[in-house]
């Protein structure tokens, strides 16, 4: 059996990141869009922890911690905004958010 190296973890993180990107591109439901962004953040966390481990450095883990903290606050603020939007328009469809006419 092959020894698991840094490349294995990076390939896994890439696959997870690609899954998250697919989700971000194809979802129109805003709640599901938030979930896909969580997958993106988690994929990056795996890559951080793996690189930190294979270089004998704790910086990767530190960055993963701060990413987790940012993800938690992002969800809190994002869901609050989403609730306001739902109370005003009654829908969480992404295509209805075209009031700026860009």
């Amino acid at each position: 059996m092959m020894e698991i190296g840094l490349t294995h973890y990076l390939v896994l993180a890439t696959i997870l990141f690609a899954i998250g990107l697919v989700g971000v591109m194809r979802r129109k439901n805003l709640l599901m869009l938030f979930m896909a962004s969580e997958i993106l953040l988690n994929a990056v966390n795996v890559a951080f922890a793996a690189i930190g481990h294979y270089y004998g450095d704790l910086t990767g883990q530190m960055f993963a911690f701060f990413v987790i903290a940012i993800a938690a606050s992002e969800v809190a603020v994002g869901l609050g905004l989403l609730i306001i939007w739902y109370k005003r328009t009654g829908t969480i469809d992404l295509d209805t958010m075209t009031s700026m006419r860009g």
Partner: protein
Amino acid sequence: METIAFYLFAALTITMFTYTVMSSQALFALSSMAAGMIMISAFFFLLDADFLGVVQIIVYTGAVMALYAFGMMFFDTTRAVKEHNTSKIMVLTLSTLAAVLVIAIVTMPLIADNIGAVFPEPAGVDNPKAVGIVLFTKYLVPFEVAAVMLLVAMIAGIVMAGKKMDRSLTKMKEEEITMLRQEETLQKVTL
């Protein structure tokens, strides 16, 4: 042993997250994502990042998933939002761009030879202790800033989600609540 664990959890994580992205039911997507988050924490344990694995379980499957579950109660998630595809050229361009970007990001640490440990792991202590040493010496200021950011996010969440919560629905009588409902529908009609 480590090899078997890696492939097992990799397969499970990819399956769970694919289901999250592809499922049209919000509840199924939420549950499979919670399972995927727990599988992700297995990688942290494999990488000797014990503290990070515990934080992953507590924060993601404890706090973030609970937030999503509460969010789902506010929305009418049984009515599926129609997911229609945009133009084929757009999807093709975006995915090609994303693939090139991801390959560039991933190959960076492989081609760079001059990467060394900035903060080497302290010898002779286990992972949570080492994390504590580095976090409260080298990363103390970012840690405090993150704490302030979490406080701001909490207040923002309360302010945004808690509108019209000044009236307690549990202490009101049935008639009062019906009156309130009628007032609200009237307001909506006039708007």
